[in-house]
């Protein structure tokens, strides 16, 4: 993290020096930074295989965290690849962009690794504020401003509520460390009103960040308004970070309260799937459509979370639910980023390219991209052999294992709706006649981005073993939440 911060600042400095037409240097720098960070993460991982706790017991670098770190870095890297050309077109090429990107990644890392609410909160805010700015990065675009403003107001509001809940937890536990909170909470009667208020307010914050109904409405606006590359980045990285935080707090910290929060989650899950899927059906704006679809995916993941919440740790249902969420996030990162990458590449000199009509006849204009987009869409719809199926598979499996047949069949119906609106895009791309016929010019970075994501989607779909292994590896720790010897590491 530290090194990322350094890079971020470094980019800011360089940005002042380099002339206008050398701005791409920033991108390169940011990319190097991400690569270097990945290197360091790998080093940490090899250095302390069992995981380590630092920063005065506020930061736990366990496999769970490392898994997410890799995820964030990958997302950031792809986002950077996507951005360069896009920013040229938008004439918003500034170093801050990359700096903020990297900083938000730092925030995410804190969220994923933090076991102290303070650190988690700081990470959250670091990420959030950077993304507010990134969303509003297109200063001349009213939609962008508006999105940023809305996102900021609601985000700040929600984090206020979140913080309120945390403060109450501190009051109950007398410590801000999740482990202590867990201990204290398990001692308490789960139906103590203060506890419940604390829990609910906290959950409000968490659910807001993962954009679950009814705390989702910021998402479509923000996604639509933001620069497309950022939309992609938000829809995967920010979401993943929020999930990491949610899992940390609800599964790690507040697990004793699951009898209280699971029923609520059930309602939220159903509401999320319903609202999002139905809303997505009639969207005519691709970005907004994908925004709703990503909310719907949150609903599916919440189903898995329900399966976890209603079954004992150690049972296959619990494990598969957990795996389901992580794999879903992993797969989702690639397929959604890929989809947004394709949409980003539609941004040409005169076209904004986020309307469904801009997709029309994409096949004639850029066959490869259209084909890959089809792959991403199928993956989103959960059609094998695309990767998306793996996530669906685990979620349905965990539901079956924990005996939620009703929820499972609900999931069936909604995945049908999902298929329908993904097919709308596919039809536009492959079947409708193109509106303008000149071939789409796609930058090298974009090609790399799309290629990488497509490759990942396909490979994970056809040979998911490594993915599943990595998830198992990362869960080796979360499954057994028993205390482990604390070895402070100096960095």
């Amino acid at each position, binding site marked *: 993290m530290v090194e990322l911060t350094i890079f971020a600042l470094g980019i800011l400095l360089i940005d002042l020096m380099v002339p206008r037409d050398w701005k791409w240097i920033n991108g390169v720098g940011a990319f190097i930074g991400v690569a270097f960070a990945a290197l360091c993460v790998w080093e940490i991982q090899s250095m302390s295989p069992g995981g380590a706790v630092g920063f005065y017991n506020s930061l736990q670098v366990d496999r769970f965290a490392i898994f997410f770190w890799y995820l964030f870095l990958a997302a950031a890297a792809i986002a950077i690849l996507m951005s360069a050309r896009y920013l040229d077109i938008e004439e918003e090429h500034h170093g801050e962009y990359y700096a903020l990107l990297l900083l938000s990644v730092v925030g995410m890392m804190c969220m994923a690794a933090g076991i102290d609410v303070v650190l988690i*909160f700081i990470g959250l805010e670091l990420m959030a504020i950077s993304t*507010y*700015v990134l969303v509003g990065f297109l200063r001349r675009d009213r939609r962008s401003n508006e999105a940023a403003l809305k996102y*900021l107001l609601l985000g700040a509001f929600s984090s206020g509520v979140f913080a309120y809940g945390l*403060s109450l937890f*501190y009051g109950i536990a007398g410590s*801000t460390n999740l482990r202590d909170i867990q201990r204290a909470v398990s001692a308490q009667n789960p139906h103590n009103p203060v506890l419940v208020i604390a829990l609910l307010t906290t959950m409000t914050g968490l659910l807001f960040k993962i954009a679950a109904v009814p705390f989702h409405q910021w998402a479509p606006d923000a996604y639509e308004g933001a620069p497309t590359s950022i939309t992609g980045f938000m829809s995967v990285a920010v979401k993943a970070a929020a999930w990491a935080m949610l899992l940390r707090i609800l599964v790690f910290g507040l697990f004793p309260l699951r009898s209280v929060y699971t029923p609520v989650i059930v309602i939220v899950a159903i509401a999320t799937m319903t609202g999002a899927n139905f809303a997505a059906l009639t969207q005519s704006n691709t970005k907004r459509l994908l925004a709703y679809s990503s909310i719907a995916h949150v609903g599916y993941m919440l189903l898995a979370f329900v399966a976890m919440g209603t079954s004992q740790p150690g049972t296959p249902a619990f494990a598969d639910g957990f795996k389901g969420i992580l794999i879903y996030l992993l797969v989702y990162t690639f397929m959604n980023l890929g989809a947004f990458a394709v949409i980003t590449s539609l941004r040409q000199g005169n076209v904004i390219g986020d309307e469904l009509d801009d997709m029309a006849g994409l096949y004639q204009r850029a066959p490869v991209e259209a084909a890959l987009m089809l792959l991403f869409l199928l993956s989103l719809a959960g059609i094998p052999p695309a990767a998306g199926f793996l996530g669906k598979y685990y979620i349905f499996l965990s539901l079956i294992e924990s005996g939620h047949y009703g929820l499972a069949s609900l999931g069936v119906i909604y995945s049908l709706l999902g298929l329908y609106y993904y097919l709308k895009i596919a039809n536009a791309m492959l079947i409708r006649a193109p509106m303008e016929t000149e071939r789409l010019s796609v930058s090298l970075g974009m090609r790399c981005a799309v290629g990488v994501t497509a490759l990942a989607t396909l490979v994970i779909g056809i040979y998911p073993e490594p993915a599943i292994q990595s998830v198992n590896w990362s869960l080796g720790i979360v499954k057994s939440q028993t205390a482990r010897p604390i070895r402070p590491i100096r960095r």
Partner: protein
Amino acid sequence: MVPITTIHYLVVAAALFVLGVIGVLTRRNVVVILMSIELILNAVNLNLVAFSRMWGNLHGQVFSIFITVDAAAEAAAGLGILIAFFRNKETVNVDEIDLLKW
């Protein structure tokens, strides 16, 4: 004269919190809404300080300082974005921010 216990602080904080929420919901001026959010955060701070007093450790106070900083940062970012917005649209009324809908 009643001794002032943690509960009192909590009640006051809760009141502040609710006020902030109502402010967020009702005021039309974005700046005022930002201020209401500050209100909420202050409620949080009050809580934290009271609790840290109750437990006799410093976690809460540390946390409250962090939150103050964060509030400042948020306000800064918010105002920046608001200025950009104002440039384009010449208004700070939330009920005129309705370009993105449905």
